[in-house]
């Protein structure tokens, strides 16, 4: 397993390097001058020039890239043009927010998606299956921003049950933190639950028609045991992959949801940074989330080992 994982890590390194080049180049291709945006209504050419020098925007692109990469290797991702805060500090502020949102959304997705998928596969072609499908499809089709605003209007404004938006750190007030995150994670979770349900359903369908399931039934095992122990465990592999991938996506930031619920996570930060041409921030976030995404894939690979004994022989 160690060999397998170290091979994966080795493959990951050039990927990260490629991503760093890509992010850097893509940003520089964007039209617009970061300092002109930064200057806003105060465009003193002398000050602009000075800041260009200070942030080394006059250096050749190759030099800019290598300065950034070498600094990044030492953990210095530069400072935000807009707020003068170090990018690493900004990200450390946002990371717990994004992780909490991602984790809570994932819980919603799994709790709704997986049982619905199993049920729908088991009761294939029945009314239950159709209902589950319709629900899944609507989860996918309802836009997050619409569902978000509707929930805010209903739950917060009308019933006054949950805070409308914002964020409270877990360490500050655990209960309030969970309450504030409930609506956004529900909005994100339901959309993911739909994908989760579809994948679980197809994986389960494949497994349920397999020979060993028939054998298990022939042995006289209870349906519950057949479905949940024999079939579901083997259907888990694609679900784990999907969970890891979706979690990786969530960590990259749920832009619209964060915007609506004013959650200060990665998504909101990166969007604002792109609009402000705050290069260091965009580069930092994309790089770190790319690494996070790759890491989640590694975790998924490791889980295969645990779930699938056949791989252990390799």
């Amino acid at each position, binding site marked *: 397993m160690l060999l397998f994982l170290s091979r994966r890590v080795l493959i990951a390194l050039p990927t990260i390097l490629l991503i760093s080049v890509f992010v850097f180049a893509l940003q520089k291709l*964007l*039209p*617009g*001058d*970061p300092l*002109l*945006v*930064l*200057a*806003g*209504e*105060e*465009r*003193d*050419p*002398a*000050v602009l020039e*000075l*800041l260009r020098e*200070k942030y080394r925007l006059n250096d050749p692109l190759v030099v800019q890239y290598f300065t950034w990469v070498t600094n990044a290797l030492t953990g210095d991702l530069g400072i*935000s043009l*807009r*707020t*003068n*805060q170090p990018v690493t500090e*900004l990200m450390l*502020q946002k990371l717990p927010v994004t992780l909490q949102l991602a984790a809570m959304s994932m819980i919603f997705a799994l709790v709704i998606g997986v049982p619905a998928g199993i049920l729908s596969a088991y009761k294939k072609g029945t009314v239950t299956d159709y209902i589950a499908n319709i629900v899944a499809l609507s989860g996918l089709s309802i836009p997050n921003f619409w569902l978000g*605003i509707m929930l*805010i*209007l209903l739950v*917060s*404004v009308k019933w*006054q049950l949950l*805070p*409308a*938006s*914002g*964020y409270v750190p877990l360490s500050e007030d655990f209960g309030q933190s969970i309450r504030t995150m409930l609506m956004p994670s529900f909005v994100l979770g339901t959309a993911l639950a739909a994908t989760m349900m579809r994948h679980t359903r197809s994986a389960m369908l494949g497994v349920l028609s397999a020979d060993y399931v028939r054998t298990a039934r022939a042995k006289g095992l209870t349906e519950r045991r057949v479905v949940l122990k024999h079939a579901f465990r083997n259907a888990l592999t694609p679900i784990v992959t999907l969970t890891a991938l979706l979690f990786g996506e969530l960590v990259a930031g749920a832009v619209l949801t964060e*915007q*609506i*619920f*004013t959650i*200060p996570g990665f998504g*909101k*930060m990166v969007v*604002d940074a792109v*609009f*402000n*041409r705050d290069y260091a921030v965009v580069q930092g976030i994309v790089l770190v989330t790319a690494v996070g995404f790759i890491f989640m894939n590694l975790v998924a690979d490791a889980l295969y080992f645990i779930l699938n004994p056949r791989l252990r022989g390799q």
Partner: protein
Amino acid sequence: MTLLKPTLMAALLSATALGLAATGASAKDLRIGLQSDADVLDPDQSRTFVGRIVYTSLCDKLVDITPDLEIIPQLATAWQLSEDGTTITMQLREGVVFHDGTPFNAEAVAANIERSKTLDESRRKSELASVSSTEVTGEYEIKLHLAGPDATLMAQLADRAGMMISPTAAAAAGADFGLNPVCSGPYSFSERVAQDKIVLKRFPDYWNADAISFDSVTFLPIPDTTVRLANLQSGDIDMLERLAATDLAQAKGDANITVAEAVSLGYQGITFNVGNGAKGDNPWGNDKRLRQAFSYAVDREALNQVVFEGAAAAGNQPFPPNSPWYDAAFPVPQRDVAKAKELLAEAGYPDGLELEVQVPNTTVPLQLMQVVQAMAAEAGITVKIVSKEFATLLADQSAGDYTASQIGWSGRVDPDGNIHGFVTTDAGLNDAKFSNAEVDAALNAARIAPTTEERKASYDAASAILNDELPLVYLYHETWIWALNSKIKGFTAYPDGMIRLEGVTWSE
């Protein structure tokens, strides 16, 4: 439902509130929803409007303004201008301390002006350009020596250039001062989480502590206007700035919400490229009759009704019609399609002409231009809307890569800030590259004229030419709309859009 306007009524209200405030402070955290996050919290480096809102509670200035834009004392209690207009002597408030305990005195003012003028990253250099030196003439008296008369200086000192920061903290932090700002305002800096909140807490040693009634103030950037209003309705925030005009009816219909409005100091309009690079050489840039035709084609009041449900103010000058600087000789023109067609024909385009306008790709500017497009079409002008993300639009405009651009200005207290930089030859914000010797002369004269009447005459002279040449076609003036929990009393709407918390109270 209360509607506050920057009138005598509002002044009376705030005066009453001042009396109420003295009765005692509430242990409440006032939560204010902002449209966006502030930039760096250093008055010398700062650029954003929301940043200025935060400063209003954090950093006192030498002088402040009234809702009618008169300059009134804040940290300076009195000032005198010398006969020749080149020296301002200021008496300073005694017994004021910065949040770190550093005393406020003439030395502190001198250090602040020095920093604004010399810090590499300072954005205040041009605002204080006329100040050649300072002279401390007493513990609480300072003289500002000017290179020449400058009628705009006091208004600059009523904004960021006049904000006093602790010289001790500034010397220690250098350009990083904004990470932990130390001023002398009613509230001191407590905490900031980017894009989440800025928390200020009451400064017990504030010189005017009796007028301050909240324990702390939390500024929360909530960009979505619907969500901002929902937060107010659910009680998660206590007040918000820049309510969307389209939400005004809903807010007014809510018994728990009070609305306050003030026509802003800024403007929105279309800037034509009349000489910026190769693209300046186009029919619209070369012939003022075409720009006049465009202006006649637009019904500004209808625009205001359709896009802003009447909440904005139609306009045709850099100053709103309610401003003392507005030139009454050129009222907001009525729409005149026949006249527009006539001008087009005179200019050699009897069959009409296309006009490409770049527009920020956000809802309001796009709606605005679509209405303008429909109006212009009736006069034979085919408006082609090119929507661009703001950073791109700004870069293209600055580089002269445009024919016409829908852009605005947030406005300044002194009229100079709304006009000089945009239309004088080679000025920093003159993206139209308009140049007219008479306009230059009039606007330069307005900068040094000693009396308001003389300044007004100079602005009117420039206005007459600009109304004819139309390098900028002004369309409307935004209205600042605040929505407040009805328990908030004593809030006064100011045309600069700031939130002044002196005298504002919370009554259960």
